[in-house]
């Protein structure tokens, strides 16, 4: 059953995609839709190839901001969660502010950040980080506090030091929660970067994919808009696959979520 199952899992969605693309192309051509309104897949592919120098440069910028925001979110969120777990006072004092930071839409803060931070890259990074870090913080905080009660007693029975309890019990217990946070935050880093680019609207050298979409829309270069959009989607898919693979690798044999059920 394994190979046929695999085939279905890949074949069905790919098949649907191909059918949609063909229908799309046929509709655009059949009804003579203007490429300004809706370009067909072939026109988009053409734009992708023709504008590749421009788009690849923009892709690199977006990737850099997304990647850096993601790394900062993982490290920052994880460390702040550990800090919270060490002191209830720190957690009680700071957590509400972390929530306020999270519930305030980043679009609303972005213009301020751009005024405050001279370096545009840095401003974009700050925006993306703000969006991405909270899921890691909140998930890891829950995880660090959710270790099994009997295991905690076990550690107390053997007089474990707070450091031992943190490293050998609470951190491993928090791993599945942390990794869920990482998966969510991977996608959000990209969202944050794109939103920040839209708001910043910087032109010229060193602007990312989102800005290219904006620019193309002013110039009615609809195929290029689609091409940039495609690259953003692909980036998102790549992030999803990468974070899922890492999570699978770490949880591997011990966690239910990473286990294949044998039938």
């Amino acid at each position, binding site marked *: 059953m394994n190979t046929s199952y695999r085939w279905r899992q890949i074949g069905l969605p790919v098949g649907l995609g191909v059918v949609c693309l063909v229908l799309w192309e046929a509709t655009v051509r059949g009804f003579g839709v203007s490429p300004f309104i809706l370009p067909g897949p072939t026109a988009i592919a053409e734009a992708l190839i023709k504008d590749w120098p421009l788009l690849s440069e923009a892709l690199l910028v977006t990737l850099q901001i997304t990647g850096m925001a993601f790394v900062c979110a993982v490290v920052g969120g994880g460390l702040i969660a550990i800090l919270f777990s060490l002191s209830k006072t720190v957690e009680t004092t700071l957590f509400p502010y972390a929530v306020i930071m999270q519930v305030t839409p980043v679009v609303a803060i972005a213009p301020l950040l751009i005024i405050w931070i001279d370096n545009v890259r840095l401003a974009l990074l700050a925006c993306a980080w703000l969006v991405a870090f909270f899921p890691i913080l909140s998930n890891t905080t829950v995880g660090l506090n959710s270790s099994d009660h009997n295991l905690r007693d076990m550690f107390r029975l053997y007089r474990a030091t707070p450091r031992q309890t943190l490293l*050998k019990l609470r951190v491993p217990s928090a791993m599945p929660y942390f990794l869920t946070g990482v998966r969510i935050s991977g996608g959000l880093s990209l969202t944050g970067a794109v939103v920040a680019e839209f708001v910043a609207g910087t032109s010229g050298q060193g602007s990312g994919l989102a800005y290219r979409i904006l620019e193309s829309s002013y110039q009615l270069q609809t195929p290029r808009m689609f091409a940039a959009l495609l690259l953003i989607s692909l980036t998102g898919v790549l992030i999803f696959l990468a974070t899922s693979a890492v999570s699978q690798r770490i949880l591997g044999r011990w966690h239910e979520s990473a286990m294949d059920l044998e039938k």
Partner: protein
Amino acid sequence: MPDAIVRLQGISKTFNNGTTAVSKLDLDLAPGSFVSLLGPSGCGKSTVLRIIAGLVEPSEGAVSGRRDAGRIGFVFQEPTLMPWATALANVMLPLDLAGMPKAQMRARAAEALDQVGLKGFEDAYPRELSGGMKMRVSLARALATDPDILLLDEPFAALDEITRFKLNNDLLALWQAKRFTAVFVTHSVFESVYLSERVVVMAARPGRVSDDLAIQTDLARGAEFRTSTAYSTLCRKASSALEKAMAL
């Protein structure tokens, strides 16, 4: 009677929510003895065990005896294994926390696993083991430090009868080989009589000792004992003591 290894004197425990789990309880444990605490649920027998382990501080009374880290092993009702660690790493935990060198720790843990019949399962994760095997790992972990006292909190309650019988026998064999002091909490009359030299019957609300039965037999514990008339007589005695405790 030799000096007690652990002595509880006038122990009371009232939790913050106002429940009195244990009231004015005295209990002496002779070194090397196998004692069962038998009682209905809510009679505070688990609390007594936790007080002995030092996991719960009594509100009143005194606990004396040798209770240093590593001198006490505890087997919980659930296997309570770390799911992210292999069987071997789980058994190594108490040794690791005590800072034992790695090679020595591995050897000791492997030996402990061997003793509970799990040789060859060192690298298995808890998820891959059956309920009985997980309990064995838990038992091996409790015995890894070679404790003087082994506390067991209804360890086999969730297992099927066949597995339970087997684990009962294995526990007895380990006790006979090592002669640690065992305190076994259970609500099964048959299990308590089968395993122990002494059954302390507890009554509920508030938890206290209502009866203290010596289980004396010339028979070796095993299938022969389990089917003997002496066993059923003792069980009847323990049963009526339990009924009396429940009527209190």
